[in-house]
Protein backbone atom coordinates (compact mmCIF):
# COMPACT_ATOMS: atom_id res chain seq x y z
CA UNK A 1 0.00 0.00 0.00
CA UNK A 2 1.51 3.28 -1.17
CA UNK A 3 0.47 6.81 -0.28
CA UNK A 4 -1.72 6.95 -3.39
CA UNK A 5 -3.69 3.77 -2.69
CA UNK A 6 -6.01 2.41 -0.03
CA UNK A 7 -7.07 -0.99 1.20
CA UNK A 8 -10.78 -1.76 1.38
CA UNK A 9 -12.68 -4.73 2.74
CA UNK A 10 -15.16 -6.23 0.31
CA UNK A 11 -17.92 -8.60 1.43
CA UNK A 12 -19.60 -11.12 -0.88
CA UNK A 13 -22.98 -12.71 -0.35
CA UNK A 14 -25.04 -15.65 -1.61
CA UNK A 15 -24.12 -17.17 -5.02
CA UNK A 16 -21.26 -14.69 -5.41
CA UNK A 17 -19.77 -15.73 -2.06
CA UNK A 18 -20.06 -19.38 -3.09
CA UNK A 19 -18.52 -18.87 -6.54
CA UNK A 20 -15.62 -16.84 -5.25
CA UNK A 21 -15.18 -19.20 -2.31
CA UNK A 22 -14.83 -16.37 0.18
CA UNK A 23 -17.11 -14.04 2.11
CA UNK A 24 -14.64 -11.19 2.51
CA UNK A 25 -11.43 -10.01 0.84
CA UNK A 26 -9.04 -7.11 1.20
CA UNK A 27 -8.25 -5.24 -1.99
CA UNK A 28 -5.81 -2.43 -2.63
CA UNK A 29 -7.20 0.18 -5.00
CA UNK A 30 -6.06 3.69 -5.97
CA UNK A 31 -7.34 6.61 -3.91
CA UNK A 32 -10.48 8.12 -5.41
CA UNK A 33 -11.54 4.83 -6.97
CA UNK A 34 -15.16 4.27 -7.90
CA UNK A 35 -17.29 1.15 -7.53
CA UNK A 36 -16.74 0.52 -11.26
CA UNK A 37 -12.97 0.42 -10.80
CA UNK A 38 -13.34 -1.90 -7.81
CA UNK A 39 -15.49 -4.32 -9.85
CA UNK A 40 -12.89 -4.20 -12.66
CA UNK A 41 -10.21 -5.16 -10.15
CA UNK A 42 -12.31 -8.05 -8.81
CA UNK A 43 -12.95 -9.32 -12.34
CA UNK A 44 -9.21 -9.25 -13.03
CA UNK A 45 -8.55 -11.18 -9.84
CA UNK A 46 -11.23 -13.86 -10.28
CA UNK A 47 -11.45 -14.21 -14.06
CA UNK A 48 -13.26 -11.85 -16.36
CA UNK A 49 -15.37 -14.63 -17.88
CA UNK A 50 -16.97 -15.74 -14.62
CA UNK A 51 -20.66 -15.06 -15.34
CA UNK A 52 -21.44 -14.55 -11.69
CA UNK A 53 -19.18 -11.52 -11.51
CA UNK A 54 -20.95 -10.05 -14.52
CA UNK A 55 -21.44 -6.48 -13.37
CA UNK A 56 -24.93 -6.44 -14.88
CA UNK A 57 -25.96 -9.06 -12.34
CA UNK A 58 -24.45 -7.65 -9.19
CA UNK A 59 -25.59 -5.03 -6.74
CA UNK A 60 -23.15 -3.01 -4.67
CA UNK A 61 -23.71 -1.50 -1.24
CA UNK A 62 -21.36 1.03 0.30
CA UNK A 63 -21.87 1.37 4.04
CA UNK A 64 -25.00 -0.78 3.69
CA UNK A 65 -26.63 1.53 1.12
CA UNK A 66 -27.16 0.32 -2.45
CA UNK A 67 -25.17 2.63 -4.77
CA UNK A 68 -24.70 3.28 -8.47
CA UNK A 69 -21.43 2.09 -10.02
CA UNK A 70 -20.01 5.61 -10.41
CA UNK A 71 -20.06 6.07 -6.63
CA UNK A 72 -16.68 6.97 -5.11
CA UNK A 73 -15.12 4.69 -2.51
CA UNK A 74 -13.35 6.01 0.56
CA UNK A 75 -10.94 4.51 3.05
CA UNK A 76 -12.79 2.48 5.73
CA UNK A 77 -15.96 2.15 3.65
CA UNK A 78 -17.87 -1.11 4.14
CA UNK A 79 -18.34 -2.46 0.63
CA UNK A 80 -20.58 -5.39 -0.26
CA UNK A 81 -21.21 -7.08 -3.61
CA UNK A 82 -24.11 -9.45 -4.08
CA UNK A 83 -26.67 -10.81 -6.54
CA UNK A 84 -30.17 -9.26 -6.60
CA UNK A 85 -31.97 -9.88 -3.31
CA UNK A 86 -34.75 -12.47 -3.29
CA UNK A 87 -36.61 -11.16 -0.25
CA UNK A 88 -37.79 -12.96 2.87
Amino acid sequence: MTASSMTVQVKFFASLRETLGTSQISLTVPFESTVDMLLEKIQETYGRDNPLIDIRNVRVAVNQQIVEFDEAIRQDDEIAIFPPITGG
Partner: protein
Amino acid sequence: MHSVLVQEKDFSVQDEWIACRERLEGKAGAVVSFIGLVRERSDTGNVSSLYLEHYPGMTEASIERIVVKAQQRWSLLDVVVIHRIGELQPEDQIVLVIVASAHRADAFAACEFVMDLLKTEAVFWKKETGDEESVWIESTLDDVSRSREWQE
Protein backbone atom coordinates in the same frame (compact mmCIF):
# COMPACT_ATOMS: atom_id res chain seq x y z
CA MET B 1 -44.01 1.00 18.45
CA HIS B 2 -42.27 -1.83 16.64
CA SER B 3 -39.57 -4.45 16.88
CA VAL B 4 -37.53 -6.18 14.20
CA LEU B 5 -35.46 -9.30 14.81
CA VAL B 6 -33.38 -11.40 12.43
CA GLN B 7 -32.28 -14.64 14.06
CA GLU B 8 -31.29 -18.24 13.46
CA LYS B 9 -33.31 -19.68 16.30
CA ASP B 10 -37.01 -20.50 16.04
CA PHE B 11 -39.60 -18.14 17.52
CA SER B 12 -42.56 -18.88 19.78
CA VAL B 13 -45.79 -17.36 18.50
CA GLN B 14 -47.17 -17.45 22.04
CA ASP B 15 -44.22 -15.61 23.62
CA GLU B 16 -44.40 -12.89 20.99
CA TRP B 17 -48.16 -12.56 21.32
CA ILE B 18 -47.94 -12.32 25.14
CA ALA B 19 -45.25 -9.63 24.92
CA CYS B 20 -47.20 -7.72 22.26
CA ARG B 21 -50.46 -7.91 24.21
CA GLU B 22 -48.84 -6.41 27.30
CA ARG B 23 -47.75 -3.38 25.27
CA LEU B 24 -51.26 -2.78 23.89
CA GLU B 25 -52.91 -1.67 27.14
CA GLY B 26 -56.52 -2.06 26.01
CA LYS B 27 -56.25 0.17 22.94
CA ALA B 28 -56.15 -2.60 20.33
CA GLY B 29 -59.24 -4.22 18.90
CA ALA B 30 -57.52 -6.14 16.13
CA VAL B 31 -54.33 -8.16 15.86
CA VAL B 32 -53.40 -9.74 12.53
CA SER B 33 -50.47 -12.14 12.39
CA PHE B 34 -48.72 -13.85 9.55
CA ILE B 35 -46.64 -16.98 9.98
CA GLY B 36 -44.59 -18.12 7.00
CA LEU B 37 -43.65 -21.80 6.82
CA VAL B 38 -41.26 -23.76 4.62
CA ARG B 39 -43.35 -25.77 2.15
CA GLU B 40 -42.28 -29.31 1.31
CA ARG B 41 -42.92 -28.55 -2.36
CA SER B 42 -42.07 -25.33 -4.19
CA ASP B 43 -42.86 -24.30 -7.77
CA THR B 44 -39.78 -26.19 -8.91
CA GLY B 45 -40.24 -29.47 -7.03
CA ASN B 46 -39.59 -31.10 -3.67
CA VAL B 47 -37.76 -29.05 -1.06
CA SER B 48 -35.47 -30.84 1.34
CA SER B 49 -34.07 -27.64 2.81
CA LEU B 50 -34.02 -23.88 2.45
CA TYR B 51 -31.04 -21.69 3.29
CA LEU B 52 -31.56 -18.01 4.04
CA GLU B 53 -28.58 -15.69 3.93
CA HIS B 54 -28.64 -12.12 5.23
CA TYR B 55 -26.35 -9.10 5.50
CA PRO B 56 -26.12 -8.28 9.21
CA GLY B 57 -27.16 -4.69 9.79
CA MET B 58 -28.37 -3.99 6.26
CA THR B 59 -31.06 -6.69 6.45
CA GLU B 60 -32.46 -5.36 9.72
CA ALA B 61 -32.43 -1.81 8.31
CA SER B 62 -34.29 -2.95 5.18
CA ILE B 63 -37.03 -4.49 7.35
CA GLU B 64 -37.19 -1.40 9.61
CA ARG B 65 -37.81 0.72 6.53
CA ILE B 66 -40.75 -1.48 5.50
CA VAL B 67 -42.25 -1.32 9.00
CA VAL B 68 -41.89 2.47 9.16
CA LYS B 69 -43.61 2.80 5.78
CA ALA B 70 -46.52 0.72 7.13
CA GLN B 71 -46.71 2.88 10.26
CA GLN B 72 -46.85 6.04 8.15
CA ARG B 73 -49.62 4.65 5.99
CA TRP B 74 -51.92 3.10 8.61
CA SER B 75 -52.82 3.77 12.21
CA LEU B 76 -50.94 1.00 14.02
CA LEU B 77 -50.32 0.31 17.70
CA ASP B 78 -47.56 -2.28 17.38
CA VAL B 79 -45.65 -4.12 14.66
CA VAL B 80 -43.42 -7.14 15.35
CA VAL B 81 -41.29 -8.78 12.65
CA ILE B 82 -39.12 -11.83 13.33
CA HIS B 83 -37.31 -13.33 10.36
CA ARG B 84 -35.21 -16.45 10.58
CA ILE B 85 -31.99 -17.08 8.70
CA GLY B 86 -29.76 -20.10 8.12
CA GLU B 87 -30.74 -23.64 7.27
CA LEU B 88 -34.44 -24.46 7.48
CA GLN B 89 -36.44 -27.64 6.82
CA PRO B 90 -39.98 -28.11 5.48
CA GLU B 91 -42.63 -27.21 8.09
CA ASP B 92 -40.19 -24.85 9.87
CA GLN B 93 -41.41 -21.36 10.73
CA ILE B 94 -39.57 -18.73 8.64
CA VAL B 95 -41.22 -15.43 9.46
CA LEU B 96 -43.65 -13.93 11.95
CA VAL B 97 -45.38 -10.59 11.46
CA ILE B 98 -47.78 -9.26 14.11
CA VAL B 99 -49.69 -6.02 13.51
CA ALA B 100 -51.98 -4.54 16.18
CA SER B 101 -54.42 -1.74 15.57
CA ALA B 102 -57.65 -0.28 16.95
CA HIS B 103 -59.58 -1.51 13.90
CA ARG B 104 -59.17 -4.60 11.77
CA ALA B 105 -58.99 -2.92 8.34
CA ASP B 106 -55.71 -1.21 9.26
CA ALA B 107 -54.24 -4.38 10.79
CA PHE B 108 -55.09 -6.57 7.78
CA ALA B 109 -53.81 -4.09 5.19
CA ALA B 110 -50.59 -3.31 7.06
CA CYS B 111 -49.75 -6.97 7.74
CA GLU B 112 -50.23 -7.87 4.06
CA PHE B 113 -48.22 -4.80 3.01
CA VAL B 114 -45.31 -5.75 5.30
CA MET B 115 -45.31 -9.32 3.95
CA ASP B 116 -45.48 -8.19 0.31
CA LEU B 117 -42.57 -5.79 0.79
CA LEU B 118 -40.55 -8.33 2.81
CA LYS B 119 -40.76 -10.57 -0.28
CA THR B 120 -39.13 -7.99 -2.54
CA GLU B 121 -37.32 -5.35 -0.47
CA ALA B 122 -35.89 -7.22 2.53
CA VAL B 123 -32.22 -8.05 2.09
CA PHE B 124 -32.22 -11.85 1.95
CA TRP B 125 -30.96 -14.45 -0.48
CA LYS B 126 -32.55 -17.88 -0.57
CA LYS B 127 -31.11 -21.17 -1.71
CA GLU B 128 -33.45 -24.10 -2.17
CA THR B 129 -32.15 -27.65 -1.98
CA GLY B 130 -34.34 -30.16 -3.79
CA ASP B 131 -33.99 -33.89 -4.34
CA GLU B 132 -30.72 -33.43 -6.18
CA GLU B 133 -29.36 -29.94 -6.47
CA SER B 134 -29.24 -26.59 -4.69
CA VAL B 135 -30.37 -23.46 -6.50
CA TRP B 136 -30.24 -19.81 -5.51
CA ILE B 137 -33.74 -18.55 -6.19
CA GLU B 138 -35.01 -15.24 -7.53
CA SER B 139 -38.00 -13.07 -6.66
CA THR B 140 -41.11 -14.35 -8.42
CA LEU B 141 -42.89 -12.06 -10.86
CA ASP B 142 -46.00 -12.46 -8.73
CA ASP B 143 -44.13 -11.12 -5.67
CA VAL B 144 -42.81 -8.19 -7.65
CA SER B 145 -46.26 -7.27 -8.99
CA ARG B 146 -47.89 -7.57 -5.53
CA SER B 147 -45.27 -5.28 -4.08
CA ARG B 148 -45.73 -2.74 -6.91
CA GLU B 149 -49.49 -2.60 -6.38
CA TRP B 150 -48.96 -0.88 -3.03
CA GLN B 151 -47.12 1.93 -4.76
CA GLU B 152 -49.97 2.82 -7.12
